[in-house]
């Protein structure tokens, strides 16, 4: 399965499933990262420790560990 963390800069993907723990899942959902949402990867911090994504019109930063819990598919 492809993870959000595996996406390269500029790639647009669709969320398939959230494999996060309960708390993190609620957090992601409250930011709009949920099933069917379209995500664009904008920027990587050094060593891909943190990534910047775009969900709808919002820019969001998340850590590598969190990005690995989001399952995505190519559009």
């Amino acid at each position, binding site marked *: 399965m492809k993870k959000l963390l595996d996406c390269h800069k500029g790639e647009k993907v669709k969320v398939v499933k*959230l494999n*996060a723990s*309960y*708390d*993190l*899942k*609620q*957090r*992601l*959902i*409250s*930011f*709009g990262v*949920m*099933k*069917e*949402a379209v995500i664009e990867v*904008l*920027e*990587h*911090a*050094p*060593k891909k*420790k*943190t990534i*910047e994504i775009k*969900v*709808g*019109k*919002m*820019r*969001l*930063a*998340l*850590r590598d*560990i*969190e990005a690995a819990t989001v399952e995505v598919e190519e559009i």
Partner: protein
Amino acid sequence: MSEKKIDPQACPIIAKHIKVALVGQPNVGKSMLINSISNAHLHVGNFSGVTVDKTEVLFDYKDYHFTVVDLPGTYAFTDYTIEERVTHEYLCAEDYDIIINVVDSTNLEKNLQLTSELLTMNKKMVIALNMSDEAEKEGIEIDEKYMSELLGVACVKVSAAAKTGIETLINTVIEVYLAPKKDAKLIFSEAVEEEIATIISYLQKHKYEARNSYRNIAINLLKENKKTYAKLHDDPIWTELQPILIEASHHIELHHNTDDIKEAFAEEYSAFNRGIVTEVVKQTQQLESKSLTEKIDSILIHPLFGIPIFLFFMWGLFQLTFTLGNIPMEWIDGFFGWLGETVSPTISNDDVRSLVVDGIIGGVGAVVLFTPNIIILFIGIALLETTGYMSRVAFLLDGFFHKFGLHGQSFIPLVTGFGCSIPAYMSARILKNDRDRLLTLFIIGFMSCGARLPVYVLFAGAFFGADMAGNILFIIYVSGAMLGLLAAKVLKMTAFKGVDEPFVMEMPKYRLPSLKLIWHTVLTQTIMYLKKAGTFIAGAAILVWFLSNYPHNLDLEKAYNVKIEKAVDVTQKAKLENKLAQEELEQSYLGRIGKFTEPLFEPLGFDWKMNVALQAGLAAKEVVVSTLGVLYSMGSDVDETSKSLADNIRENIPFASAVAFIVVIMIYLPCLAATTVFAKEAGSWKYAVYLFIFTSVVAYSLAFIAYRVTLMLT
């Protein structure tokens, strides 16, 4: 739902009061809206979590007294952070008449996610479509009338920045307040609607009595709202209702292919919101392929250049603090010197003159002197906050911070700590995990606050030339921050072991800083600083003056006066007078305290005056400078009274001792007020005691090392 409601007809006095709860996601301009409505001096920033506690603002409009409660921004009712908990608890449990839901017009769909949760609250509500001017510029057209119709909630276009639509908003609030409550229109997918209908018909059959509508109760039950559950749990109908609910959630979960009902509802809301947005929003012009924010981001958070750019900004800020701040400092210094000289001959009583000139003017003057530096630093931090750059730095530094056991968002309280530790301690609330928050709280003190700046400026200016002083200042701040990180690592490995908190953070749009906002922020903080100088510090200066002048030793004075009279030439006279002053100071109360603690600080190379200044600094760091001012102005050469404090320090304090002194100032407790706030935020005074022990031990050991190393090198 169990809220008490005030009956407007019951009491004519209460009827004129409208209590408004201002709710919205972070960064939609709630505080700025209150600012525009009431001209209150709230602190407005462009990163999540500026309003850390709820703020109440009172104002009158027409025949009504308004109380607006500005609640901390919340993305959803998830109770994820303390702020979200504050907001959620307030909305569910407190008494208020109406909700103003502030939304960002440029990002309606995301903002409606919270709105749809508010719609089931059984409260009157008005939606403020904020930033409507910005939306227009981006070619977003919102049909607010149609939106009001679709949602069943009044929607008003406003712009807090341009101050448009604010009258209409308040008038609408009054209208909605006077009108009977209408049910909002929230429509779900067929599966959910089916289950809602089942529950409603069940409630109808049993004629269940409730304030909230059956529909809202049904929705809350399906959403597993704890309060609604608790209420129905005690009712006899529960036994029959329970199996219906189990069946219903099973159905919905199946429909959404998840085992999490909250996720299912989030998807329901999202679908509903998408529907609303498609209906009411028209994008008239296509956005450029890359927005301005993205263009700026590609430079500022560049993987390679991002961090050097950030360091450059910080370096520039400290350079400015020193060079630019120096100009008005000379005027202020001159003014207080002139004031002292002018006032001094008008007072005949020796004791009173000494109190006024050395104690009050000397002490307060020494503190007021640093106002320009403080202003520049505050402007810098306000700029960081309001432009949205702060979140970018958190993004850049998270990888680095994580290595030290910190969270990228710890950066926000840490940077705020460069201004003042008090708001820094409070803003640490954005960290959800208690361990992470405590860890951040413990190292905020390592970020040198504005009040320590005067001490640094004084010493850097005394021992280094003007061209080097700015760099020295930068080094002091950076090494303080580095020490903080190391301390964090040590604490994380020992006292605060555990799992890390996830890092998921919004990166707000860049905004041009509003001059008015920065002016407000800086003005409020500067006034606070000057107020402190005028009251607390003036008091401390008088106390220090008293302790350093009494008790008078009459025998000593007599013996010296005889010698002075016998002295032949002026220089010898002056020498003797100076010696008298020195000896009197040493046997004063203050001298005794300093002498008593001398053995403790001797390994650091401090004389008793420095001991006293440090101990007085536990109350507030500004007092360090004022104390040094009082102590060194009295014991100095009499023939050169115009000598500045910096000159006195250079002559009286060895370089190595000065370095050790700065190290202690960098690390030990910020001030009494901050320590109180720390204890409150950490949750217990126990932690304040730990903090005191921790900082004192670290300060002492590092100062000792610094002293020895400097001695060896020089």
